[in-house]
């Protein structure tokens, strides 16, 4: 277990970014918001001492990230004045921060792809069942949804030659991934749900693929 020197930002496009694309390509059928929110770019930044410094770091890099996002859709040569506006950037993207990292490459710098492990409803159900005797926790859990659980969920840094390599990798490594994700929640293994097969793992967790991990540090 190592303390993190880095943080990972996943940029999730909003309807404002979709509208921006629509304004740029009025004659082209653009993808749905769902597709826009698939395979979002992940960026590595240096871990800062507090949230204020983290925001400063994001502000320092936002123009680079904004340009990259625009270029992914409009081509490498596309340039727009909007790249310079921090407020437009924040309207176009929500950022999701991850510090719980399973590194499966020699160094973080050599990692170019990332998998995000997302808890499913069954895990939330398990959590409710685990604390059903504690009124206070039951009350807290009534206000919890999957997006709360997914915040800072485990990300796996691992390079693949192709998309087809991902499932075999998960089938082989699901126990390690499961353990890492559960350690985020609770350090006593006896409390964890029993995951004795890849199929059971997929009942509790889904995986999102991020084919671009860019290093800003």
């Amino acid at each position: 277990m190592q303390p993190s020197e880095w943080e990972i930002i996943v940029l999730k496009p909003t309807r404002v970014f979709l509208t921006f694309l629509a304004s740029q390509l009025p004659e082209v059928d653009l993808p749905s918001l769902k597709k826009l929110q698939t395979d979002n770019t992940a960026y590595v930044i240096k871990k800062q001492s507090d949230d204020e410094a983290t925001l400063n770091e994001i502000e320092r890099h936002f123009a680079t990230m904004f340009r990259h996002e625009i270029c992914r859709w409009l081509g490498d040569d596309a340039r727009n004045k909007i790249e310079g506006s921090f407020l437009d950037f924040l309207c176009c993207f929500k950022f999701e921060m991850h510090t719980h990292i399973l590194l499966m490459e020699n160094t973080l710098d050599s990692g170019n792809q990332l998998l995000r492990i997302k808890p499913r409803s069954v895990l939330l159900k398990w959590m409710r069942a685990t604390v059903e005797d504690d009124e206070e926790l039951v009350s807290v859990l009534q206000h919890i949804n999957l997006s709360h659980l997914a915040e800072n969920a485990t990300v796996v840094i691992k390079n693949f030659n192709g998309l087809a390599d991902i499932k075999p990798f998960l089938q082989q490594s699901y126990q390690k991934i499961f353990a890492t994700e559960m350690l985020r929640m609770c350090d006593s293994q006896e409390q964890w749900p029993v995951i004795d097969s890849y199929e059971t793992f997929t009942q509790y967790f889904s995986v999102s693929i991020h084919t671009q991990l860019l290093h800003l540090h």
Partner: protein
Amino acid sequence: MEPVTIAIICATAFGIAAGIAAFIRQLLLSRDKSLNDEAQHKALTLEAAELEKIRNQMLGVKRFDSHYQLLGANKDAIEYLDDKIEEVLKKKYTLIEQYAMLTLKESTAIIAGESSEERKCLCDTLKAEIDEELAFYQTELQQLQKRRAALWDAHTGMQDRILDQEKLRNDHLDALYEHHSGVLEKVYIRHNENSEAIAKQSIDASTQTFKALLSLPFQAIIDYFKLSSGISVDAVKKEAASRDAVNAMEDQINGTNKSDDDILKNPTNLSALLRKKRSEPAV
């Protein structure tokens, strides 16, 4: 397939929870939300600083007056019209500045979660009234400039300089107004869950193209974006195809027909999962 190295990296503050109870208690404190909100507050503060800078620039503009020494019989009448033009531009600036301050205040409220359709309607009504007022100022400005041109009997080159200066100021004001109208609309759409729900329903419900969806609330902001240079239409198609492939792989991994709802709707399956007794450590 075996990785060369495996390392678990975590932050101290948001790392391993000692027990499930501690983890559950901190779930409601969303760091992501807090960071996103803080970043937007910061960006709005930058906007306010920019507005202040523009205000100072506007106040610092010195109107040409050297032509008064050169003009002939109509000098007094032209000076009077110049003053009236100046007055219109100042009134226009005051109106836009007040609106810009309101958009920043309203945007801050939206980020703080105080958005409501009622408040947005009030803002829309106010904007419609300001639009009318600005159109009136524009007509007045053009009429005054026309009257002045009719009186100008010499040194027409100087008149062109004055017109250019007035045009520049007027264009800056229009840009300022458009910018701040855009700020409010974008922040509103970014935070309004209802418009998101409508958009999602519409996208899910049919195979209609994006253009057909533009009757939705985000139509309001499409005109606030300027056209990029160097756009490649092929890049869009390539990116869309690449994401389709990723989406298909995610479906294969996660199971297209195995949504959370499907798992939860199958109580036998769920109970079996939750009843499983631990016989050996998972790892």
